[in-house]
Each structure stands twice: as C-alpha cells, then as structure tokens.
C-alpha cells in the first residue's frame, strides 16, 4: 500500500489558472520523499488538496489507501501537515495550540500533554510552552508547527518548506529530528528550496513544474544522471591568461579562481596534471553548486546535457 497515491489530479482555479494538470504520484510507506519545484509550480496547491484545504477539480487522492472522496476523515487521521505560512492563533500559548490540535483529533488531554512534553523537548521549545505564540521567533514558530502536526502521531507527515528562514544550526537539528521520526516509521514528504536538504534527507524525489510532474525517481538515479560536474578551482598565484587544455574547458572567474566542467567519464587527475604542466597550482577545489541544484536547474531549463541512464 502506498502512503500517498495521487491519480490524474487536476486543479483549475476560478481565474482559469491551471495549477495542476492531471498529475500522478505515489509515495511508498516509510519513504522520505522530496517534492521540488520553482515558485508557482503547484507544490502548495498539491499539499492544499491533500490536506483538504483546497478543493480539487478532478482526480483521486488516497492516503494510506483511504480515498479522500469516500473516507476523508480516515485519510485525515493518517496525515500531519506543516504548512509554509504560520497558521496558529497569536493569542494562544504554545501549549494551548498543541493541546487544542490534539483535541481536534480526539486525543484525551492527558495523553496530549505527554506528547506535547515529548515533542517540545525533542524540538527544544519546552521552556517556551507557556509563551504566547506571537512572541516566538521564526525558527521557534516552525518548530511549534512541527510539534503541532505530530500531536496525533500521523503515519504521513507533509512539510511545506519547514526550514525556510531558519538558521543553519537549527536547520541541521531539524534535519536530525526529521530523520529520527522517519526511521521510527513516519513517511515524510518534504518540499524545500534548499536542495542540499532534499539531497541529504530524501530517498525519492519528484519535480513539479507548471502543474506537471517532470521527474519522479529515486534520488540516487537522478543524481546518477548528472553527466558533468562544475568545479571552482582556487589558484595559489594569479593567472591572467588561461591556457587552452586539450580535454577541459576553463572559464576565468577572476585572476585567482577558475571554473571548469568535468564530464563524469573524465578524470580529475588528468585535469590537475594538465594544469600543472601549464604551471597553474591549485590550492582549493569545490563544487560550484550542490549536485541536485545543478540537475534541478538543468531540468527546469530543459537542457540536454544529461543522459538518461
């Protein structure tokens, strides 16, 4: 059984905006799944429809086998949502917010309190439990929304850009937390603009653009398609005129750094050897962007420099 199964899902808004154009998608139980796409691609519409906050025009959604047209409430019981925008009452305390959320799912208050203590502690917001939500920083609000979504211990957790605007340290701690709950059996679907995040966390990936799924595969398979890697080489001495190498194309960034594209069939040792022969010494090397980011941009630009292996 799939944790999430979407068939021919279509959404046309009142202003004739065709946000989703008959998409199909399956997420396996226990998966950590990335849903990527540029702004306006249809990610939030898709999540809105899954969570029943947006009405679909046609198509079918099943959450752990529960067709949302037939058994919406059973589907909702399996689902936890962390939305992109803050959507809790600013006048309530953090504890009130999560206890109320648990109450909406019919969870007795005693159990709800125990869960609140557990998730607040794990997410590092226990000492903020009695603070009004409006007094929290952006990062704390994100953590509160994650705790709220977990109060009914959903089997499927969907997070819409959970680390947007969150500092690096907090982002890393949230990654660890999400990996832990995924390892404990929760299926996770994540949308993010930090492609490093998707690459580090997710096993499978779908890319949505202009209402269509343009890629749906495993992360390993997708990254394996990257035929060229772009590196930035930092030089020990300034180089004003770049030599012409037989196998590699160099691009000058500034006198102290150059950019080079290396096909995956090529060897970095050959590059260093060629550069050494030209008396160019390298003191540092780094990727221009992370691998997924490079693929993502190429996919969206519809470039042909990938081969589908």
């Amino acid at each position, binding site marked *: 059984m799939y944790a999430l199964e979407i068939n021919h899902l279509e959404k046309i*808004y009142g202003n004739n905006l065709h946000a989703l154009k008959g998409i199909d998608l399956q997420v396996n139980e226990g998966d950590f799944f990335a849903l990527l796409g540029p702004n306006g691609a249809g990610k939030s*519409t898709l999540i*809105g429809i899954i*969570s*029943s*906050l*947006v*009405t679909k025009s046609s198509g079918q959604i099943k959450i752990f086998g529960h067709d949302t047209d037939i058994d*919406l*409430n*059973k589907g*909702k*019981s399996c*689902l936890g*949502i962390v*939305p992109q*925008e803050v*959507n*809790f*009452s*600013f*006048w309530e305390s953090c504890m*009130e*917010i999560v206890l*109320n*959320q648990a*109450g*909406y*799912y*019919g*969870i*007795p208050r005693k159990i709800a309190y125990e869960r609140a203590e557990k998730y607040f502690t794990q997410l590092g917001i226990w000492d903020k439990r009695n603070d009004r939500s409006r007094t929290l920083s952006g990062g704390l609000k994100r953590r509160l929304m994650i705790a*709220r979504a977990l109060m*009914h211990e959903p089997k499927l957790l969907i997070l819409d850009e959970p680390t947007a605007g969150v500092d690096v340290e907090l982002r890393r701690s949230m990654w660890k937390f999400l990996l832990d709950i995924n390892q404990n059996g929760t299926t996770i679907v994540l949308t993010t603009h930090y492609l490093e995040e998707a690459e580090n966390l997710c096993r499978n990936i779908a890319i949505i653009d202009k209402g269509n799924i343009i890629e749906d595969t495993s992360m390993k398979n997708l990254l394996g398609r990257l035929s060229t890697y772009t590196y930035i080489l930092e030089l020990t001495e300034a180089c004003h005129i770049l030599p012409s190498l037989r196998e590699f194309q160099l691009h000058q960034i500034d006198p102290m750094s150059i950019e080079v594209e290396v096909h995956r069939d090529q060897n970095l040792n050959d590059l260093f050897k060629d550069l050494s022969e030209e008396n160019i010494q390298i003191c540092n090397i780094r990727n221009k962007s992370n691998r997924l980011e490079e693929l993502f941009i190429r996919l969206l630009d519809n470039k042909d420099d990938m081969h589908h292996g």
Partner: protein
Amino acid sequence: MGSKRILIAFYTIVFKEVSRFLRIWGQTILPPAVSMTLYFIIFGSLIGPRIGRMDGFVYMEFIAPGLIMMSVINNSYSNVVASFFGAKFQRHIEEMLVAPIPDTIILAGYVIGGVARGLIVGIVVTLVAMFFTKLQIHNYFIVISVVMLTAVLFSLGGFINAVYARTFDDISIVPTFVLTPLIYLGGIFYSIELLPDFWEGVSRINPILYMVNAFRYGILGVSDIDITFAFAIILMFIIILTIFALTLLKKGTRIKS
C-alpha cells in the same frame, strides 16, 4: 473517528471558544453590563416614570426582558462572528479543517461558544436589572427555552456572517445595519399595540419581535403575540440557518480555495 473522539473534539472547540471570550472579559462581558446599566438609568429611572405603565407594568419592568434579550442576541451573534472570522483571518481555522472533525461538530462547537457568551451576558444583565426593578419569573420553562433557542439562532447567524466576511468591515455591517434596527423595532421599548395597524403588521415580519415577546411572556406573563407561534418561528429559523451553515461548511465557501 469514534463517538468518544468526536466528543473530545467538540469539547475542545467549546473550551477554546469559552476560554477566548473569558480571557478578554473586558471586551466581551463588561461592556454589555455598562450599556444596560445606562439603558436602565435613562429609559427606566429617568424617562420611564413620565411614560407611565405599559401593558399594565411600570415601564422599567416592561423593558427589562427586552433589554436582557437584546444582550443575549448581540453577544451570541458577535461572539461567533468575531471568533470564526478571526480564525479565518489568522488562518488557524485550518487547524480544524485538516483534522477529522465532522462539519456538524465544528458548527456545534462555535454555536455553543456563542450560546455560552449570550447566556453569561444575559445573566449579568439580569443581575443589573434586579438593581433597578423586581423581576418575577412567570414561566421558567419559557424563559430558559426562549433564551437558549434565541442564542442558538443568533450564533448561527454570526457563523454565516463570518463565513461570508472577507474583511473586518464585513463583520460589522450586518450587526449595524440589520441586527440593530430589527432589535430596536422588535418591541423592546414598546408594545406593538401602540402602533398604527400598518406598522403593527410590518412589525410582525420582524422575527426578533417573537423572541422578545416570548421572553417577556416568560417573565411578565404578557405578550403581543401567540407563544406557540413564537416558538415555531424561532425553531423554523434555527433549522433553516443550520442547514445553510452546514452547506457552506461542506462546500468550503470562502474557507477553501
């Protein structure tokens, strides 16, 4: 969701609603007490003796039931309209909409919240009235049932207003331009028998007239209209507004995209 879980969800909404208006009691409970005190002083103590008796009662006694009912109507309506629109505005209504709560429970939770505020304010205003006049209950059953049903009816009205509202202006238009005129022309300050035949007939179209008179009958034992008919009118409006509100929730009108 089993019946126990549904009950917990219902309690949660009611608890949240009641906590909300009690937390801001200075905005929800106190103002009606102050304004009703002024009504009793001005219309009851100062002007009332010059008006004389109405339907056989001193003017203060005559207007007290209507003023209590006015507080119940205003507060049950404004509680739900403000709370539900606030939840829409801050988007925390989504907390409920993503949860497996039946629409009937969401509606019932908000309505009971409105009824609770209407009743608490009604009790406060009754206590204020007792400083100015002697209130003797003619029929407890009628008093309690009319006040409860009226609070339910106007909570439903507030809910529907909140569903349609897009701005804060939208939640004040109906109370200002519809509710207030209907309340003032609903026989709170006068018996409709004083009106010319034409205006008496027009007054009978106003549903609030039936609630005020039924409540007045429960307290004083006098009414301009038939009590059974008044109950039928109130129940009919409750049924219509309940069906309408549930239809709006089911369709997600102005709640879902």
